[in-house]
């Protein structure tokens, strides 16, 4: 295996992470999750299952919610990535984060970054979701503390507070 190292070229990938242009030299199949955590030291995205089932590594890629453990870094060439670190506005908690805090939507916290990004994505698409739509929007995000009711309440509170469009404008 040692002999194989360096056999393949490292790839230069230019992407935007939380509105900052970044360039990484990396093996092209390295997972976006690992680049975020190891190369860019953004440890908000968590590795839960590593197989796209739990959503703890969820980030936004060109506005779409994706599991960063399933994205080879080369496919982010030129992409805009938003992680949980990029959600706060002017160092103040985003209203979704504030609602999770107030409603007790976070317990151990491992699922929380993914939950908040999934909520962000949901409210972008459906500003006033029904409970059923919230359940579908978050069905790829597992909370092993099983605090789902409080998480749903957090999403409802965030939807009631404002739509994402009006906050970012």
């Amino acid at each position, binding site marked *: 295996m040692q002999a194989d190292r360096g056999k393949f070229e490292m790839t230069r990938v230019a992407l935007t992470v939380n509105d900052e242009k970044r360039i990484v030299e990396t093996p092209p199949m390295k997972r976006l999750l690992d680049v975020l955590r190891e190369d860019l030291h953004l440890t908000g995205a968590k590795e839960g299952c590593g197989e796209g089932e739990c959503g703890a590594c*969820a980030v936004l890629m060109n506005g779409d919610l994706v599991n960063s453990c399933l994205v080879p870094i080369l496919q982010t060439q030129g992409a805009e990535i938003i992680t949980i670190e990029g959600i706060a506005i002017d160092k103040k908690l985003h209203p979704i984060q504030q609602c999770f805090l107030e409603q007790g939507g976070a317990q151990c916290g491992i699922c929380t970054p993914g939950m908040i990004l999934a909520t962000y994505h949901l409210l972008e698409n459906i500003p006033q979701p029904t409970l059923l739509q919230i359940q579908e929007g978050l069905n*790829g995000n597992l909370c092993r503390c099983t605090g789902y009711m409080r998480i749903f309440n957090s999403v409802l509170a965030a939807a009631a507070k404002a739509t994402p469009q009006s906050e970012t404008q």
Partner: protein
Amino acid sequence: MRSNVTEYELTAPRSLDAVLQILADSPDRYTPIAGGTELMVALGAGRLQPKKLISLWNLKELRFIEVTPDAVIIGAATTFTDIRKHPIVTAEFSILAQAASWTGSIANQNRGTLGGNIVNASPAADSPPVLLAYDAAVTLVSTRGIRTIPYRDFHISYKRTDLAQDELLHSITLSRNMHGYTTYVRKVGTRNAQAISKVAVAIVASSNHGVIESIRIGAASLRETPARLVATEQSLLKQKITPATIAKARAAILSETIPIDDIRSTAKYRSVVAANLIEEFLQTL
């Protein structure tokens, strides 16, 4: 154990032509990767065998939904989210949109592609039963040219397809002649969200005064590939729905399905539930 990523090569040509040229010229096999919802799982688990991969993600020649007067043509790298958001697909091919809605989570629907779901060739995949019921056609492309075949002929045996080494699945064509047909799709899994199916059935049928005039049944997890249930269809053609017809259809299902016992379910459960699903549909006619 996780794979060592430095052992893998990934290239991302900017055009379909460039991809096809590489597939044609390379003595080694390149494995196409689109949204990564299958292959990246294998990478994470340390069991991704192919070492040379070629990215199809966001290739515009493969990510499109084209509507003509007669057909809807869906590019192979179109995501399940693209499909769910398309007004004509949701209106005229509602069971495809429904199957797309339960193909993994929203995050996976944003990345997973219809072509990937087909080419991965899992017998349990979510979209193939519906595509079989709609009698879709698939178009395959290489530097040698383009060919279109009925989707029902695409899967040859377990995980083997009709694709040649230098070919890609280009698109899936659905005929816009669904007026007057009744459709049905149901997936049975451990839970609603995200579970891989134990068994799934999709049906497109037409009837006149209670007599079945045409019927196509696509099924997942009942044979070694996604499959049409032809004997069951034959047992129902030109029949009125009576207890005797239903009994015959149930017998036909047992005769032509070869389900397996695995971690998700048992063969016996699968065949009984498949028969129940088809009976559930027949009762609605």
